[in-house]
């Protein structure tokens, strides 16, 4: 298991990322509360307390929408990848914004009573049996709890402690949380407003998230469906070495759906699993840096020929056997155990050019 908790390699401008996020969110809340209301002709201003709840609540929703768009965008266009590296900071910031929203609500709607705020939150409205008047706060509570769990376990310590599959499954809770936020808005604020502008924003956001995921899902599904068939002895055709860009990989989907990243580097060809040991990042979308396959997500590195992380790290990924036959690279569909060295293809100059 990795002991590397600070793995960003390519993208050192973490703080720029955070600064942009804080700027966007801060500007949003400031403009929402202080500037924009001056442009609406209200007979009486909306209470500052209510402006605060609305500003932080809508901001958290927009942030969550943005977070969920980054994943599919990065799959559709690799240039979005840098946005993905630091997505966890984005998530933690969103949790903070949602928490502020919850705090402002508790401090206004559930304050000034002899009943404690948190008890009031769960007891003031119990109309669970009806659509109109449903205690929509509960949807918000669920989403906030999920955001809290995800923020609290966002550090790599938890990733290795829980193991990547468990961690990943846990973090998939973000989808039910998003659905819950949409329900929270739909059963709450949207029931009250006569002006439809925010309803349009909410529907637009949810539709964007859904469409982006559908497009990427369908694309990858289609790619996987045409999984390359192996011959009787289990060898799958990859293509000419020249088809693989230097220091990059060609991703091959096997009949079973697993993906293999076949890298060309330094006059050699090696194949490893496409799935990063860190957090299932797409290794085949990364490149060779300093002789190592470097994951595009957080920069974990692996020797392409052995599947092992360079010392002092100990992560391992599965490798695949490769061979060159008639100028065509083949990969064997049977994965080797993680960390098993596999003989790379040594390319002659002409083979490297795909001649």
């Amino acid at each position, binding site marked *: 298991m990795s002991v590397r908790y600070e793995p960003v390699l*390519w993208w050192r401008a973490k703080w*720029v990322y955070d600064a942009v*996020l804080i*700027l*966007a969110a801060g*500007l*949003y*809340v*400031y*403009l*929402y*509360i202080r*500037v*924009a*209301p001056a*442009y*609406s002709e*209200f*007979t*009486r*201003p*909306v*209470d500052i307390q*209510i*402006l605060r709840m*609305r*500003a932080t609540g*809508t*901001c958290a929703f*927009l942030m969550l929408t*943005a977070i969920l768009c980054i994943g599919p965008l990065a799959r559709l266009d690799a*240039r979005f990848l*840098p*946005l993905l590296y630091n997505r966890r900071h984005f998530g933690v910031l969103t949790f903070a914004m949602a928490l502020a929203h919850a705090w402002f609500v508790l401090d206004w*709607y*559930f*304050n*000034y*009573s*002899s*009943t404690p705020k948190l008890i*009031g939150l769960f007891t*003031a*409205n*119990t*109309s669970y*049996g*009806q659509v*109109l*008047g449903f*205690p*929509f*706060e509960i949807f918000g509570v669920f989403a906030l709890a999920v955001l809290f769990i995800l923020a609290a376990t966002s550090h790599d310590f938890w990733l290795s402690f829980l193991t990547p599959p468990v961690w990943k499954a846990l973090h998939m809770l973000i989808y039910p949380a998003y659905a819950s936020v949409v329900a929270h808005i739909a*059963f*709450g604020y949207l*029931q*009250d*407003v*006569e002006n439809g502008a925010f309803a349009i*924003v909410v529907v637009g956001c949810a539709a964007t998230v859904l469409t982006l995921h559908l497009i990427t899902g369908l694309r990858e599904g289609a790619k996987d469906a045409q999984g390359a068939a192996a011959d009787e002895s289990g060898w799958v055709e990859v293509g000419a070495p020249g088809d693989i860009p230097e220091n990059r990989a060609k991703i091959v989907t096997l009949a079973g759906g697993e993906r293999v990243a076949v890298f060309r580097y330094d006059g050699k060809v090696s194949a490893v699993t496409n799935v990063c040991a860190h957090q299932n990042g797409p290794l085949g979308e990364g490149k060779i840096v300093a002789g190592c396959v470097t994951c595009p997500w957080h920069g974990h590195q692996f020797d392409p020929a052995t599947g092992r992380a360079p010392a002092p790290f100990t992560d391992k990924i599965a490798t695949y056997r490769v061979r060159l036959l008639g100028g065509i690279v083949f990969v064997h569909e049977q994965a080797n155990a993680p960390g098993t060295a596999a003989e790379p293809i040594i390319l002659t100059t002409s083979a490297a050019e795909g001649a």
Partner: protein
Amino acid sequence: MSSDSRRSTFLFSAISAMGLVLGFVVAAFAISSTQDDPGRTGFQGGVKLRGVILAAPYPHLMTPPSAKYPQGRAIPLASANGKRGVGGQAKRLNGQIVELRGFIVRRGDGEMMQVTRRIRRAKDQTPFAMTKPTRLGRWRLSGEICDGQCVLGIMKPGRGLAHKACANFCIAGGIPPMFVTEKPVEGSQFMLLGGPDGGPMPASMYDKVGPFITVEGRLERRGNLLFFFIDPAKAEVR
């Protein structure tokens, strides 16, 4: 990475970052400036009133008829101290002449007094003539059950489904609930609610606070205020 692809990655990231910030700026304006107008409400501080305090269905004060209020002015009462009513004091002093201090919140024809000090029994208990309640018969009305103080202006806005839990909280705390009708009925859009027995609104009606409902009940005018004694069995969310 080649310097060319490094530059294009940088450019792309810079554009996405600018897009994000710009998107948030536009969204802030679009969402904030299209909020609904909370409407006109009024506030009058430093009010002193004298009249008979009555506890049912909810605490209210009945003042002697005057030029401005020929039938007398009936004004619902709540505590100025948070989401609390003045039910205890009203019960203790029920039917007696009291002096009140506080402030009045107002929206349209609806008003409520927030009592700031302990309610005191007036020294002078000389009774005054109060107009008899006028029975207006059974009505089926559409509108919203609100907690009186929020809807009249303590919160802006202070009604609707997003505010429902707060309204329940207030009503349970003893703040008089009011029915806000779609269109004025007998000249008023705001009426004090009560239960079929003339007491407070039954707790089963809490589920119907907030949404737009249709409800049947007995309508009565006492002083200048309408009282709507509703039948929980005849209430439905529309």
